[in-house]
């Protein structure tokens, strides 16, 4: 027996119940919740007061004190930008993440199509082959990759970074898309095929439009992964022209650093803007993306 959750009286009774719960227990519950949330957000508070301080002010005033003026932010941004070449690093990472995740999701979609929609001999074997790519920790790729890249002249190259990012971002989307493509009814593409459409047309105009939700969510997930990556880029592309934003950020924070915490913290903010912005704007897809792995 299930309750009809669209039934208006049921909803009303629920709302009433919630309201009563909030009126009795909810109000006093808000006190610890807000206290906890404030404590939880302290690092962000620290971030926002620090980006408005000069290095000298940071050293002399308490770290949690409010800044004297908002003006130092400009200089902090300029310093972070020039000291670490954040600009070119951001462009590198944008292209790695944008092109890399688009290609990876496209390749995964094509493979998922081939595995679910076509009469592929040994489809399961092929799937397992690619799925194996999700089993190993990244640490098992690193040493051979670096030496392979050295041999091929791919170390410190834009193309080299793109290739590994594409490869690493294929298996998970394939896993998800294989499931979601299986869920699309076969009638659509069978009809198109009978009318003589090529497999490519069926894929592009029948299957892709039916899976935009997961495709966007997967793109966002992989974009965030590539943007946030430090491990691969720190090993394969240290050069200033090709390095990723996270390597640039780490170079500011790293050793011998004479850079003030105010500049480093400003750089962490700058390097977080794209993913945070995407999260705010495309929250729905992000949250959908979270559930993808579970099904």
């Amino acid at each position: 027996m299930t309750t009809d959750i669209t039934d208006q009286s049921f909803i009303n009774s629920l709302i009433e119940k919630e309201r009563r719960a909030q009126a009795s227990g909810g109000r006093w519950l808000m006190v610890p919740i807000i206290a906890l949330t404030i404590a939880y957000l302290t690092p962000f508070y620290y971030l926002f007061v620090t980006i408005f301080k000069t290095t000298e002010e940071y050293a002399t005033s308490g770290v949690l004190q409010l800044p004297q003026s908002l003006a130092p932010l400009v200089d902090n941004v300029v310093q972070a930008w020039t000291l670490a070449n954040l600009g070119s690093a951001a462009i590198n990472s944008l292209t790695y993440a944008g092109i890399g995740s688009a290609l990876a999701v496209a390749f995964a979609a094509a493979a998922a199509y081939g595995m679910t929609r076509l009469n592929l001999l040994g489809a399961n074997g092929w799937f397992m082959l690619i799925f194996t790519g999700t089993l190993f920790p990244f640490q098992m790729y690193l040493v051979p990759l670096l030496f392979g890249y050295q041999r091929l002249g791919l170390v410190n190259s834009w193309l080299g970074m793109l290739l590994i990012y594409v490869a690493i971002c294929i298996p998970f989307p394939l896993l998800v898309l294989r499931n979601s493509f299986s869920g699309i009814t076969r009638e659509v593409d069978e009809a198109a095929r009978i009318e003589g459409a090529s497999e490519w047309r069926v894929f592009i105009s029948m299957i892709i439009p039916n899976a935009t939700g997961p495709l966007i969510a997967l793109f966002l997930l992989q974009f965030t992964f590539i943007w946030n990556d430090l491990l691969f880029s720190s090993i394969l592309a240290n050069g200033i022209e090709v390095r990723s934003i996270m390597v640039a950020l780490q170079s500011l924070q790293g050793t011998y650093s004479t850079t003030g915490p105010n500049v480093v913290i400003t750089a962490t903010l700058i390097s977080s803007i794209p993913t945070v912005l995407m999260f705010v704007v495309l929250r729905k897809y992000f949250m959908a993306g979270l559930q993808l792995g579970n099904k």
Partner: protein
Amino acid sequence: MSLTKTLTGLALTTLLAAGGVQAQELKLYSDKAEWHPGIEAVTDAAGEAAGVTINVQDLTPTDKYQAFMQTSIASNNVPAFFTWWNGNQLSDLVATGVAADLSPYWDQAIADGDYSAAQRELVSVDGKPYGVLLNVANWVVFYNTKAFADAGIDAPPTTWEEFIAACDKLKAAGYTPINAPTSGGWMPFIWFSQLVLGTNPDDFVGLTDGSVPYDGPTVQNAFKVWGEMYDKGYFTDPREQDDQKFFVDKSAAMFLIGDWHSGTFAAAGMEPGVDFKTFLMPPVSPDAEQSVIVEASPIVVSAQAMSANADLGKAVQSMMGEAASTALGTEIQVYNGNLKAAAPNATIEANKKMVAEANPRALVRWWEAVPSQIQGDLVAAMGAFMFNPTPDQAQKSMSDMQAINADYWANL
């Protein structure tokens, strides 16, 4: 199936083409990012002389740079030029065959009076030179002249007792006596090696060839003295990552380091010879002879690049000339030992004189002398002690170091 082949072929062609484009460029790799302007001035002139462009590529920190260069060597893909170290580091490198023999250029430079035969030995393995000198530095104690005056220290210490007395006076005057950073994955060896060589210079040498253990009496004594100095509050907070911070903000009075660092103090607003001067670190034990560490950093030329382009010889000659030395001096106040060129600042000039007069035993830095495979592990054990300078940690550091050391020499 043919399509798969075509695709693979295509992918490979793209890869190889990308690799090919890269190889066109000559590069100089360096872990000395803070010297970038000086190195660039040298390579620009050298490139012009040889008719090529040489781009300077910095890679820090040092341990990562070394590992990266190792991978380049192992895959036979070394850059045309790269900065390196002398001592064991250089002989290990030469054994791989990637370094070009620079004998003709050194012969010429010695004939021209740019360098001496003794300087050639600094970068030679089995009598053949494999590097251009980028930096020749004496390791001395820098001191803040105002701090010494404030503490009532009239003359720099010449014995260990005087040194300790100076530390106490500085402490009393409100200074932290010694700036002792742990940055860069290498700096913890500074005081370790100073206290070992101050106790027994022969054992210091023996440490690096496996004949003296890292938990023997000399090292035990070094750690004991080191721990006492920490107990008395002589050293700065090891957590600070800016290696010169406490010296240039004048809260710490002394800094034991190679005199290539004088340029960065100057850049931070301290005038060499006025705001800071130097002295030779006296030995800990009165029986030990006075010694000094001489550091020499070479630029190595890839043998492959050299044989591919004979004109690179002109670049090497340019790097060894007086103009290159002057450029290094003016840009970054680093001295590469060229005899015709003037020392870049008063401190380096004074050190040259001081060393010539005292005539101490010259030692290769521990960093260059120790087998490169265990260098990092050993430094980490020293760093662990600096963060936690207790007798227990000293014992643990020593036994860890000896375990690594014994394992290395046993499995050679």
